[in-house]
């Protein structure tokens, strides 16, 4: 059983129970709960955010629900927080705070600022550097997020295409919990966005760091959309429908 580190994306041999899947999937865990024992089958697992390997067992370090993805054999803990802890492959909305010679420094709401290399844009060359000002909003992807170092970002996807990343012009950014942000990005589309989309025209960019960017031709639309999204956090789908309808009526 080979074990290599405990950082995100690390690979750990594991196995538990007859099916090899932890019995706690979709259950709520508290920090310190043991999720798996690494003693049985020699399956290879990915240990995601909120989990840590401690000797022969995998422990939860965050409070939240345990999730498991069969395709990549990955476990992670999903909780909702006000503060954001960077994880690899998260898409985040950052705000530029500084410019260095080789990189832009973005505030992504985590414990440390993220660094975005100036060449990490589609079609960027030394002569063709993107022109970002301090205070600009950027939609980026977390490439590297070690516990002990500053997170690294990129405005391209793995293949080098822009895929929607890059600077966000205009609009309005508000904060929300990480749980709500995850909910907004989940499939199927949450009812609040569906119902809003049917009557209003707007665009949003949701960052898993608990930031949502909204843009629309009219300011009233932006405000309606922001309020609707913030209200929808703890509502069931039906309640979301009703809430959005009411909000649209009131604003007309």
């Amino acid at each position, binding site marked *: 059983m080979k074990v290599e580190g405990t950082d995100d994306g690390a690979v750990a041999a594991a196995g538990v129970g007859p099916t090899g899947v932890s019995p706690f999937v979709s259950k709520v865990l508290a920090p310190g709960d043991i999720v798996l024992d690494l003693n049985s089958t020699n399956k290879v697992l990915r240990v995601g955010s909120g989990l840590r390997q401690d000797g022969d067992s995998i422990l939860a370090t965050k409070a939240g629900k345990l999730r498991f993805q069969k395709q990549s054999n990955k476990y992670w803990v999903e909780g909702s927080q*006000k*503060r954001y802890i960077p994880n690899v492959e998260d898409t985040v909305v950052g705000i530029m705070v500084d410019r260095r010679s080789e990189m832009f420094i973005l505030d992504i*709401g985590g414990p440390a600022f993220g660094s975005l290399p100036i060449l990490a844009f589609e079609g960027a060359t030394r002569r063709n550097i993107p022109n970002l000002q301090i205070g600009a909003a950027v939609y980026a992807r977390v490439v590297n997020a070690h516990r002990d170092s500053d997170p690294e970002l990129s405005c391209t996807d793995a293949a080098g295409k822009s895929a929607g990343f890059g600077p966000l012009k205009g609009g309005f950014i*508000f904060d929300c919990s990480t749980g709500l942000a995850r909910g907004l990005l989940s499939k199927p589309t949450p009812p609040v966005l569906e119902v809003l989309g049917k009557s209003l025209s707007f665009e949003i960019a949701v960052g898993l760091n608990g930031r949502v960017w909204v843009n629309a031709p009219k300011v009233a639309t932006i405000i309606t959309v922001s309020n609707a999204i913030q209200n929808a956090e703890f509502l069931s789908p039906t309640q979301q429908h009703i809430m959005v309808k009411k909000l649209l009526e009131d604003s007309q």
Partner: protein
Amino acid sequence: MATSNGEDGSVEVQLGQTRVLAVVKGEITQPYPDRGNEGSLAIFTEFSPMGDPAFEPGRPSEMAVELGRIIDRGLRESRAVDTESLCILSGRSVWSIRVDIHILDNYGNLVDAANLAALAALLSYRRPECTVGGDDGQQIIVHPPEVREPVGLIIHHLPIAVTFAFFGDGNFQVLDPNLKEEEVMGGRITITINSQGEICAVQKGGGVGVSASEVMRCLRIAAAKAQSMTETLKKAVEIHEIERAQRKIRRHPNLQNQIDTASSVPNPIKKIEVEMEETSEDIEPKQALDTERGIKDLSMSDSSRMKSTETEVAETLTEKPSRAGGRDLFAGGESAWGDDVKLTPLKGSPGTRSTLFPLDSDALVEFDVAARAVLRGGVSSQRMSSKLVSEPLQRQISDQIAAAAVYANQTSPLISEDARPLGPIFPRVGDMDSTEESDAALETKSVSQPEGTPVNFYFSGKKKPKKRGGSGRQD
């Protein structure tokens, strides 16, 4: 909006998404030399990074110091908290009250929230009562809360802080700014004012200039806001007071079980004693009303001594039932009174002062439900059928009374001496026949029993007289 943490003097206020915790503590110290007969009040703020990523640990930032100063000025210079009553020995010992304000979550307008939290904490804080005694009259005796009820601070009025944010040229005001508004505002003004319209403090630091008429407009709005906020604050404190009083009702454990089976609420209440000064404003069974008044009169005069003896007796008393367990509550042996003793007039004893002890089982059940509803902050969804609990309840209570009565009459003469002024509630053995009139005064129908059965229990209304056995007494 505001929640109390259950402990006296610790309050968390939630103003929108802003959360602030205030904790009040008291300590006996030496007074300032030039203010020998005044206690002191000090405000401390703590802006931990938990509340906002912008807060740094270590030295308080300018904003933190300003917040502390605004609250301090509002309370101290308006003399809201009476400091002279905090003096114990002039020039030697005074109470020093300390308010710690912790910012838990910053979503704007920390000043208003922190001020409310500090006020609520000061209103709910109880300090131990202390008396001066000893041989030379210079010794300070601090009484523990079990012996003497802790006493609250004297607060003359409630200075409420109201904050406005200015935008544009100062002609556009926003009340209670949130985090985003604070970040882009042009200036701010905080007005500390009480519900009588007396201005306690004004703080306008920097930012855009504001005309005098705008400031007057803000003052008028602040006065109206302070009135409504004072009402809200007082209501929240009152609810806390009721809950605190409810918590003091101590029930017999078996009684508790009966009630619990019907309405599953865990409550660590042990004793069946009721404090004299318990406020019965919310629940007032009519039967008990007259007795309450009688008892309250007594408690004014000699409450502390009564209470201490009362609690002593109650404590030793309830030990017996809990040890015996079950329905066999009386573990003291046979009654010493014999056959010709009427226990009818025994309506109470140290263990069962009937101030809040509804003599009707329906009322008792309702009382319990209501009390628990208040404790839980909600309403009980199930109304217990009184039939379910009345029988065993009656038995429990009657056994309790019997046990208490016998025990009381066997113990120190001190108790019966003091108990005599209480009249019908706590008669001495010799007075028993003369208490028939008091029955009427209490508005209860006594369930008359044939001679020889140990204890009667009083239920007004439709309850049939019950025969009991198993209480250990013979006829």
